[in-house]
């Protein structure tokens, strides 16, 4: 029986979303496969790692008892011993408990997890891990870089500019002028590296633009400013696979054109701003139309765009591609990539005929396949360079 470590929490604004993803959508179905021993590895908001079976219980988090628990619990450490081993004090005569990890299932959202940091660590440890690799995660988590890659691959993106916090602090007026010259209102201002719609603002004038950039700079040092897509239909497509890709259903969040996802409507309210619409299904992110009711050609076009983005960014394992459709011109714009979709977007996969248990089983298999492929590559080269010294 292989041991899987599910790593969740983390130093990210999306810490809480990560807890729910791990406990509801990953650990439970993984345990039900009966093929793996599952270890819960929780990274607290201060970055300290904990490893304990009690961390599998959502009530520990929902009741607020987590802080008391962490105070009483010894932190865990990670040992790189030709692989990855979790170590913690057992509490009995100073003895330590260790567990060799065969596969890692990252359930991290946002910084220090979904952005490639954790993937880099796991690559160094040479342990198979689920989801996108380091390179794809870095690209996906930078909305500007992702758009640039998409443009280079002839994938449409909405008109955009970007700026850095320090530059904006020095010459805000100049930057605002440039933005107003090159882009047309309404605009969206987004922190470049944050997910779960945190810090995103829709603006209609210069004053709002300035305020929104200041808000975004509070969260990130790189800020994306982009034009709103007119006649908007927003869709998202979860995709799974390494070389051979499997898309789930194109899903349409039920929002008004002037509305958009923010963190509260996405994860707290159970629906969209404005109350959403009747007749949709309730998924990980409120109500949505699943599958999106687009006519076949447009549906196929959006699906192909999603697959093209997935390949262009080098995604593997799982990712969710968000797209914006101008319903009048029927142009599909790539918006952003989510390399670790909240809750794995399990509701969409289930609708596409893949149960929660099958989903985590498949993702685990894909992780092992990629690891085997990577390990077949030669990374050493024999030279007599050192003999010169």
């Amino acid at each position, binding site marked *: 029986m292989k041991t899987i470590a599910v790593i969740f929490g983390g130093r990210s604004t999306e810490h809480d979303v990560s807890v729910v993803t791990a406990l509801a959508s990953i650990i439970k179905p993984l345990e039900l496969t009966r093929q793996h021993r599952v270890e819960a590895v929780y990274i607290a908001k201060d970055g300290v790692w904990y490893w304990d079976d009690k961390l599998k219980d959502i009530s520990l988090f929902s009741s607020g008892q987590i802080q008391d628990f962490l105070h009483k619990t010894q932190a865990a450490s990670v040992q790189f011993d030709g692989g990855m081993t979790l170590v913690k004090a057992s509490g009995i005569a100073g003895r330590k408990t260790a567990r060799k990890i065969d596969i890692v299932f990252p359930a991290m959202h946002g910084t220090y997890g979904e952005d490639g940091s954790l993937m880099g660590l796991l690559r160094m440890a040479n342990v198979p891990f689920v989801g996108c690799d380091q390179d794809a995660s870095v690209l996906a988590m930078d909305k500007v870089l992702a758009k640039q890659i998409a443009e280079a691959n002839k994938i449409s993106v909405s008109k955009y500019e970007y700026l850095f916090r320090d530059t904006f602090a020095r010459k805000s007026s100049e930057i605002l002028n440039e933005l107003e010259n090159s882009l047309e209102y309404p605009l969206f201002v987004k922190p470049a590296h944050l997910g779960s719609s945190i810090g995103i603002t829709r603006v209609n004038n210069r004053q709002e633009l300035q305020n929104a950039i200041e808000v975004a700079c509070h969260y990130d040092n790189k800020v994306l400013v982009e034009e709103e897509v007119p006649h908007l239909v927003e869709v998202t497509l979860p995709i799974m696979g390494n070389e051979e890709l499997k898309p789930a259903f194109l899903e349409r969040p039920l929002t008004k054109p002037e509305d958009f996802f923010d963190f509260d409507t996405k994860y707290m309210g159970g629906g969209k701003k404005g109350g959403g619409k009747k007749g949709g299904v309730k998924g990980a992110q409120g109500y949505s139309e699943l599958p999106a009711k687009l006519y076949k050609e447009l549906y196929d076009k959006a699906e192909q765009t999603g697959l093209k983005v997935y390949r262009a960014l080098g995604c593997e394992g799982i990712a969710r591609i968000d797209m914006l459709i101008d319903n009048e011109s029927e142009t599909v714009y790539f918006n952003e990539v989510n390399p670790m979709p909240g809750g794995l977007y399990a509701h969409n996969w*289930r609708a596409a005929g893949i149960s929660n248990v099958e989903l985590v089983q498949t993702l685990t298999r894909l992780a092992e396949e990629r690891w085997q492929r990577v390990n077949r590559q030669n990374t050493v080269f024999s030279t007599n360079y050192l003999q010169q010294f």
Partner: protein
Amino acid sequence: MRKLLSYFSPKMPVYFVYMLQQVEYDPRKFLEWIARFPNLSRVMRRQKLVMTTKAKVLVIYGYILAIFYIALNVQASIAYSPAEIIYLLFLPFWIIFMLFITVLIGWALVEKPKRAHEVKIAERIFANHKAVKIAILGSYGKTSLKEMLYTVLGSQKNVAVTPGNKNVLISQARWAGKLTGDEEVLLIEYGEAEPGDIKKMAELTHPDVAVINGLAPNHLDGYKTLEGVAQDLFSISDQLKSRPVYVNTESRAVKPYLKKEHISFNRHGLDGWKISQVESSLDGVSFAMSKGRNLIKVESGLLGRHQIAPLALCVAVSHNLGLSNKQIETAISRTAPFEHRMQPRELGGGWILDDTYNGNFEGILAGLEFLKELKAKRKIYVTPGLVDQGVETKRVHREIGKAIAKAHPDKVVLMQNSVTKYINDGLIKAGYTGDLELRDDPLNFYSNIDQYVAAGDIWLLQNDWTDNYF
């Protein structure tokens, strides 16, 4: 080792009393359960001990026995030899023996005479009651049929019905005490367990009409053979003499016992009624029933073609008792699946057919017949098998295995137990090529089924063993 250690758990007396409660304080069934050497720490996983007065007294008694035994042994080891302490290992046997003896004595001296008195009073109530008394018996489908009749007849008449699956002599007697005397129809479920049961119930309840809803090799621990079950069920004819006895001839096993005075009912019709235009889907079953110029259109939410015969019986009995066609059609349209009996539940675009109260061979076949005719992206069949099959256990489960294979599910999930190997034999013999998965923790599986289901699936869950069978 863990199993053995569970017999020395501080909660051991509680576990034993829970087991007694589960078998309704039947000393014989208690011993049968103990003989299977269950892991005591796992017996209370589905339910907990209900602290009735009787349970409380027995738990306290169990602990007193334990303390007494331990004290005696400790004293003996001090007084005689330290080796005497070894007798503590026999503590569980001591508790089991004493509880068994106590329950046995309590049964003989208190419970039995008390029950005999209750039955005597109830017999007078039934004999003097003016209602049409309908006895519902058979190896399976009794509770469902009773509920169907209640839905239809109860829409127009004052009907009283034995509650839930309370179908033994004493439960009928206690129910009689609750009747007001104003009822127009009494629906009485007869549960058979050993030879003579049906005769006793008929003598108690004085039925005017009887319905035998099928024959199957159930309760063979009491009857030994199918012939024994049949003789007991068909003994109702002797009690009713010329009054109507309906027999569900969907069950092939009843045919050797069918006599010309019996009224046969099945999916083709009954008593001059003809059935046509049958349609069956996940929405329910519908058909037309005609007798001469009289036409009744039946639309029910019940699932499967095996429901046609009991629905047809409801129509015929209701018609005989004076309900109009319109009243019958309206009432039948209200029939819906009963809890855990071919009860459909939509789950994330997939369907669960919960038939976990189905504990008989014919019912298993009926469910599989329905699964076979349904269209789905993926079909999954789940069962632990059947209990109380006696000497027929091996044959019955091999037949179930073959029947499963014929329904062509994509996947079969078997709850691992003593009959699993026989079902597997049947699957292999019938050339089943789909996936097979064995599960050793049914409760965990059933309670997390949402994690296994995807859109386009149909999962048929048949039967669920209670704690005392694992």
